Structure formats: C-alpha cells, structure tokens
C-alpha cells in the first residue's frame, strides 16, 4: 500500500523519470505526464490520484491553464506548483486559483515529501467531510 498517489507533470523527461524513481523508492505511487493535456488524460483514467505536482512553465498548455482545468474537473485533487524563480508570481497566481502550495526548482526531497503528505492529508480530510455530510444527509432524510 502506497502512502499516496502522485501525478508528476513536467516537460523535462529526465527530471520526471528520476523524480519518479526517488518517490517510488519512498513508497509513493507515481503517475507521470509530460504535458498539461497528458496530465488531464491521466486524471481521467486514474481516479486514485490524490496530489498533482505541476510545473508552471511548460510548452503548449502551461501550468496555470492546466491547474484551472484540473480544479474545475476534479476539485478535490490537490495541486503543488513547481517553479523556477522567474515564475514565482505565476505560482502565487496559481495558489489564488486553488493550488495547495508551491516549490522552487530544484527542490529538496524532504521538503517535497512533507508538502505532498500535507496535501494528501487535506484531500482525505475533504473527502471525509463530504462522506460525513452525505451520511448525515441520508440519515436525516431517513429520520
């Protein structure tokens, strides 16, 4: 059983590959995508993804656009933005539209893991609340 399921999105293939290996070694289940569109496809096919690690600067659909799409289709999935320094502003913009946090590249593994854990916990909390709310709704209806 993995600690959490992560979707890693970046156009830098070697970066994604190494990251995947390192995260997998730490008992995370890692899905990968090399573009914004691919990320959306993966999410569509794999509902188990809890946290998306998303590079801001990508060719084609960029991180912000991808974030918007993810948040509108899968509002409970948490997103951590990954950025070079020049795009801190856009990472902050991203947080305004619902990203969980941002990290600067190259990032410290421990830091990353801590953030991912937090994000996954929040997602689970949200889901828990929704389940509770549904149960309450059903029980109140029955009563």
């Amino acid at each position: 059983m993995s600690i959490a399921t992560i979707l890693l999105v970046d156009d830098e293939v070697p970066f994604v590959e190494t990251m995947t290996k390192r995260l997998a070694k730490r008992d995370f289940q890692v899905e990968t995508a090399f573009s914004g569109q691919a990320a959306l496809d993966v999410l569509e096919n794999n509902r188990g993804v809890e946290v998306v690690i998303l590079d801001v600067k990508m060719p084609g659909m960029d991180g912000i656009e991808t974030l918007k799409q993810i948040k509108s289709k899968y509002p409970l999935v948490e997103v951590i933005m990954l950025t070079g320094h020049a795009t801190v502003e856009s990472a902050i913009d991203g947080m305004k539209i619902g990203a969980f946090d941002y990290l600067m590249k190259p990032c410290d593994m421990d830091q990353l893991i801590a953030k991912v854990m937090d994000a996954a916990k929040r997602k689970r909390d949200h889901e828990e609340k929704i389940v509770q709310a549904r149960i309450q709704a059903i029980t109140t209806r029955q009563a």
Partner: protein
Amino acid sequence: MQFDSEYYKILVRNMFLTIITVSFVPVFFVSATIFYQFNVSHREKTISHIVEIMQKHKLHIDSFLQQKLADILFLEKSSGITNLLSEPFLRQQLLLLQKIYGPVFVDIGFINTQGVQVAYAGPYALEKASYENTEWFGRAIERPFFISDVFLGLRGMPHFIVTVRETVQGNPWILRATIDFVEFSNMVTQIRVGSTGFAYIVNRDGKFQTKPIFDIQDSIEAVVEEFSRAQILDNGVRILERRTSNGKEVLYAGTWMKNNEWLLIYQQNKSDAFSELYRVQWISIGIFLLGGIAIVTMAWLIAQKMVGRIAIADREKEAMNQQVIETGKLASIGELAAGIAHEINNPVAIMVEEAGWIQDLLEEEDVRNSKNLEEIEQAVRQIRAQGSRCKEITHKLLSFARKTDSRKQPIQLNHLLTDIVGLYEQRSKYSNVKITTDFDPNLPMIEGSVSELQQVVMNLFNNALDAMEKNKGGELTITTRKEDRSVIVDIQDNGSGIPEANLNRIFDPFFTTKPVGKGTGLGLSICYGIVQKMGGDIRVSSKVNEGTTFSLVFPLNEEEIMRDGEPTDS
C-alpha cells in the same frame, strides 16, 4: 554630437535677423512719419514767420513812400507857383520837412517843362540843372506823381526822388524831392532774422534799390527771373529755394511792391532758417543710431542666449534618447539573462535529482559493502552542494533581472545592497577586491523604484571595481546611515581616483575617460538623473591614487520622519 556648430550659427543668424527686422521696421516707419510731419510743420511755421515779417515791412515801406509822396503833394498843393519858384520858400519848406522827418529829405527842386530846375533848395549846387534827358524825367512828366528807382544822378550819390506834377500855364512842371538813400536803406537792412537772414529791394531789372548788408553770392537777375515763376502764397509772397554759387542752400522770400516795380527780397541760408529743424534732425538721428545699436546688441545677445539654451536642450534630448536606448539595452540584457538562468535551472534541477537518486541507491544493501562507498557518497554530496550553488546563482540572477519596473515602492536599502553585493562576490574575487559592508540595522525605508536603484548602485560598483582593477585590487566599503531627514549610502573605493579637473564633469552626459567603444559616458549621467528624479542627490569626493567616495543621499518621506520622530524605546 549630431548638431554641428554650423547649424547653430545659422540659427543665431536667423534669429538675429528676425529680431532686428521686427524691431526696426516699426521704429523706422514711426520715426519717418513723425520726422516728416515735424519737418513739414516746422517748415510752414518758419516760412509763415518770414512771410509775416515781409508783409509788415512791405506795408511799412509802402507807407513810407506814400507818406513822402503825400508830403510833397501837400507842399505842392498848399503853395502857389510863385512860392515854389522862390528858393527861400523852398529852403524854408525843406528845413521844415527835415525838422519833422529827420534827414530823410535831402533837397527840393522845381523843374519846368523843359527839364530845367528853375528853383532848388539843398546842399548841392543844382540850380538850373537840366534833367531833360534823364530817364526819370520822361516818366515823371507823364504822371501826376512818381517815385523813381535809385540812381546816381548828377550828384554822383545813390538816391531816389519823389515827384509831383504841377500845371503851370498849361504846361506840366515838376516838383521833386530827393529821399536820402541811407535813410531808406536802413529801413530795409534792419530786417534781420537769425545770423544770415537779411532783406533788400531790387527793381525789375535786378538793380539794387537798397544796399544788402551781406554779399548776395548769387546772380540777382536769375533770382528775380525765377521769382516770376515761383510759387505764390495766398498773401502775394513768393518762396524760392536756390543753391548759391558757393553751394549754400538759400531760402528766398519776395514780394512785389510800389506797383510791382520793386521787389522786396528776404533771404536766409536754409541751415540758419531751419537750424532748429536740423538740430532736431541730428538729435533724432542720434537717438535712432543709439537705439539701433542697442537693438542690434540686444538682438545678438538674445539670439546667442536662446541658441545656447536650444543647444543645451538638444544635448539633453540627445542624452535622454541615449538613456532610453541604454535602459532598453539593459532591460533586454536583463531579460536575456533571466531566460538563460531559467534554462540552466532545469538541467541543474535534473542533476541534483540524479545525485539524490544516487544517494538513495547508496542506501541499498549491495553497495553498502563497497570499499569506495565513502568516496562515492562524498562525491555525490559534492554534486548536490554544487547544484545548490548553481541554484543560488541562477536565483539571484533571476530575482535581479525580473522585468525592470519603475513603479515606486518602499525599499529597504540594506536588503537591496546585500543582494547586489552577492551578485558582485564573484567578480570582486577576480578583481582581488574585498567588499565590506557596514549597514545601519535601523535604516528606514525609502521610496523608489527597485530596478532603477539597482541600476544606480551597480553602475557605481562597476566604476569602483574598474578603478581598483587598475590598481590590482583594493577594498570596497559600502556604508548605510541615517542623517537628519535623509538616508545616505556611501560607496567608497581605494582605486585610482578622479583627477580634480574631471570632478565636476563626471555627471555630464557623454563625458568618459574610457577609450572609444568602452564607455558611453552615460552611466553616471543616468545615475544622476535617476537619483534626482527620486528627489535625492549624488555627491562625490575623490583624491587621485587614494580613492573615490560616492554618496547617494535619499530624502525620507514624511511618514518615515514622523515615525522616526517618535520615541523608539517603547
């Protein structure tokens, strides 16, 4: 410079000519009009004065002659023929006339039809003198009374006579009296105006009837001749202007009298008659010339000054353009640097991750026993450490090269300076320069644009490092402090220094001591412009071979001063 001095010379000339034209044309027309009007009216006044004198004297002379004639007429009418033939009676009458009128009457004579003077009283021995063939007798015998022209006569003295005809036994006889020429002449010669104005009488043939007190210096016949064609004023006086033989302009005024037989002429040199006019003329020419010189001088000075200003404005514009270009260049270099930094960031991230992966793998059992494990771990750590260093560098560069924005915001100078010092660490090492900082930890914030301030500080750093490179190293000290109502940053180097002669030119645009192509001469000028715009000031003190200190002085805004003014111990 793009503007050569020829351009400015032409500009000065055009401006000069325009000012002169605009100033002179109205002055010229106004002066000319006034002068012409004055000329005309003064001329009229002068001439009317002369005319008045002429008329007065004409009346005077006419009445004098009439009176003499009347005297003789009275004598003739009041005395019988026998009395007139008696010389003692005539002598008695002569004495009487002389007693009343002075020595005007010289003698009296009674002449018969044949022209023989039958009776005579006077100083000359003219009894029985015959006048039969004289010109005047012929005319006198035909008229009831007659006044002759001046003639020498038998006595050989200039004189003229008045005659009255008397009929004796059906034949015309004549009673005549001689009028003293000198007495008569004095009446005319006393007409004097100015220094050259005088009068005289001539007859129709141009013979003088009185003695002119000055030489006429002109052909009197020509004058008389010309008078007949001259312009006649409404009171019968004719005005004539002639140039005499010696080149003098003379004004003549004449009027006919004694039944158009005599011409009373008054003449005066124009320079004398119109002396006042000429004086005014000279004064106005003087004023005009002085004014003209003043206008020309002022026009020249103004043109020079204006063009000087224009030249300065052109230079400033040029500098501004250069500054804009320079800023644009800096901005694009900044963006380029940002791009490169970003691109490098990704490979570095991958390298760091790969190193991390190796570290992860080293945890595995099978490699744990390798004898070189220690070394490998060491190497991987080193890779990671260097990767972090790269990251730091690119991040600094990126934070620096963010889009230049000139928005005002509060700036903590200590942080800004720390960042820049960080950027210069590497370069200063190569230049063998030690950078030391001495920051006031309680430095208040100032208002300004971060990117502009960076530009200023970096420019000063570059200059300082350049100056110290020449000396193979040195020390750069950056100090921040608060003083009264301003924050001061001192950037002090111990480089080659600035010669005193250049010290007050270093902020001039295009002033550079670097070789052609190495410096634009705009760096400090741009710094100066930026700091001035922020309301601050740049000061410089320098000694050759000892070093230079640039001080940036920024004013604190009101809020900061207020906040600072409060007690801080709370």
